């Protein structure tokens, strides 16, 4: 019991620290500038001048949220299709199309999409969605297929309808695996969305790109540090403390 509580306290302390760090960098412009100039003493200017970090962060979060929401809906839909009676013959096809989508570099997808749908957020969202559908499909399929055959058999034999069986047995049992896929997707998306700067979608990639062209490492850190803490924060938020214990025990 006591170790359980300690673990819980540590878990939430970590989350609070990451949230505080992310918020501090985003909103305490002067404080963050002092940190950056300490890290990169010869940088001038220290902060990316075009947009304040709060706006860049908002753009980043927007890109990630929109792309993740679409990928979640489409990926879960495709996963459900692959598991349904109608889609079962296409299960392997759906999974391999998902894998194929992930093999195409997202920068290439963005570059190819720009002539078709223009600069801005759209090509980034498209690239992120294509890129992150796979972990969702895979984890939905693996999660549902991993539900013990005995539990499935018992649920059927006790007279649950297919819907009841899905909602009260299959889905809850598959949830940890599905959440794992969502976590994976979010972490990938937070870092991949920085590439949106290439097609003028804004976000934390802007200072990184500018820093690259202007040999200003402070710009690069200004974009990268908040992106790192944001990714870590999302990862921790979707990791249950119990799951950590299992990870360590195994």
């Amino acid at each position: 019991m006591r170790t359980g509580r300690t673990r819980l306290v540590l878990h939430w302390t970590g989350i609070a620290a990451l949230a505080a760090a992310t918020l501090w960098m985003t909103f305490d412009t002067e404080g963050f500038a002092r940190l950056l100039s300490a890290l990169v003493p010869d940088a001038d200017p220290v902060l990316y001048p075009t947009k304040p970090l709060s706006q860049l962060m908002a753009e980043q979060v927007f890109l990630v949220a929109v792309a993740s929401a679409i990928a979640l809906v489409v990926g879960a839909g495709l996963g459900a299709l692959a598991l349904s009676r109608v889609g079962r013959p296409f299960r392997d096809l759906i999974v391999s199309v998902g894998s194929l989508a992930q093999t195409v570099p997202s920068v290439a997808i963005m570059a190819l999409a720009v002539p078709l749908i223009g600069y801005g957020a759209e090509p980034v969202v498209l690239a992120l969605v294509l890129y992150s559908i796979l972990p969702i499909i895979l984890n939905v399929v693996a999660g549902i297929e991993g539900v013990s055959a005995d539990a499935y058999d018992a649920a059927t034999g006790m007279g649950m309808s297919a819907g009841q069986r899905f909602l009260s047995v299959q889905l809850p049992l598959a949830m940890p695996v599905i959440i794992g896929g969502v976590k994976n997707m979010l972490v990938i998306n937070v870092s991949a969305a920085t590439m949106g700067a290439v097609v003028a979608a804004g976000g934390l990639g802007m200072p990184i790109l500018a820093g690259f062209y202007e040999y200003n490492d402070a710009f690069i850190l200004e974009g990268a540090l908040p992106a790192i803490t944001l990714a870590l924060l999302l990862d921790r938020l979707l990791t249950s403390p119990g799951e950590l214990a299992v990870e360590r025990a195994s």
Partner: protein
Amino acid sequence: MIEIRSLTKRYDSLTAVDSVDLDVADGQFAVLLGPSGSGKTTLLRMVNRMIEPTSGTVLLDGRDTAELKVETLRRSMGYVIQNTGLFPNMTIRKNVGTVPRLLGWDKKRIDARVDELLDLVGLDPDTYGPKRPDQLSGGEAQRVGVARALAADPPVLLMDEPFGAVDPLTRERLQQEMKRLQAKVKKTILFVTHDIDEAVLLADRIALLKSGVLQQYSTPEQMWREPANEFVRGFFGENLGLRIMARHCLSSVPLDPAPPAGTETLPRVPASATLKEALAELVGSGASAVLVVDGDRVLGSFGFEALVRALSDGSGDSIACGPGATAGGTA
């Protein structure tokens, strides 16, 4: 009452169940017995339509089960499987309350029923109710499986090798409990096993199957005395007589009057012991008979003649032996 009529299941070239006819009367414990691949599980699963038959019918209280809504049919039959199939995401309470929940009972009624059932299978509701299935031993989990199957008080129980995955000691205890439970709840039971001891111990009737064909359907006593064919004789082997003796208790057979007190010192055996245990005592002590006692009270004497008599008339109904039955026969 379950009436199975020329029930057949064919898979391509394989006939898993071949035109089986079988009646299970209300309150009867019927065991489907046979080697693996004999079609016993397929037969069981056609009763609740987990498998749809190729041809033939199953009548439940005179109604064709094919005409019932499949969920309704299944909710009227308790279902117990080998690895319990408890839902790992639910507490024991929620597991046991599954079918009542599906039937839309109100919460208070479900709670009361779950308490009652956990008590019935010998698990304290306060201790075990909040636990998760992975916190239980194999035997406890299987008890919960039985409680869950009984939850909505279905007239019929389908049990597919329910005690197959637990250790021998636990299995024996569960079998004895099952017997006592059945004496209390009087369900119509179809029970699949490949364990001859288990079948002979529990069954009112045994349906012996081979390659999907029903070989004989009768009491174990009849199978012993009048096996339908060589397969039946060979399947049970030499030990069937002893196994049948383990089915009956001294308390359920006619005894001889006890000799006047003091004339003879005979070994004492409790009335809850099985005939097999009494026989072991007779042979072991070399006495002509044993005294059957209930505590200090002498009920009568039991010798070889009484044993032969008991086995030759026997109605075939298996009687739940008392709690002392498995603990050894001597007093």
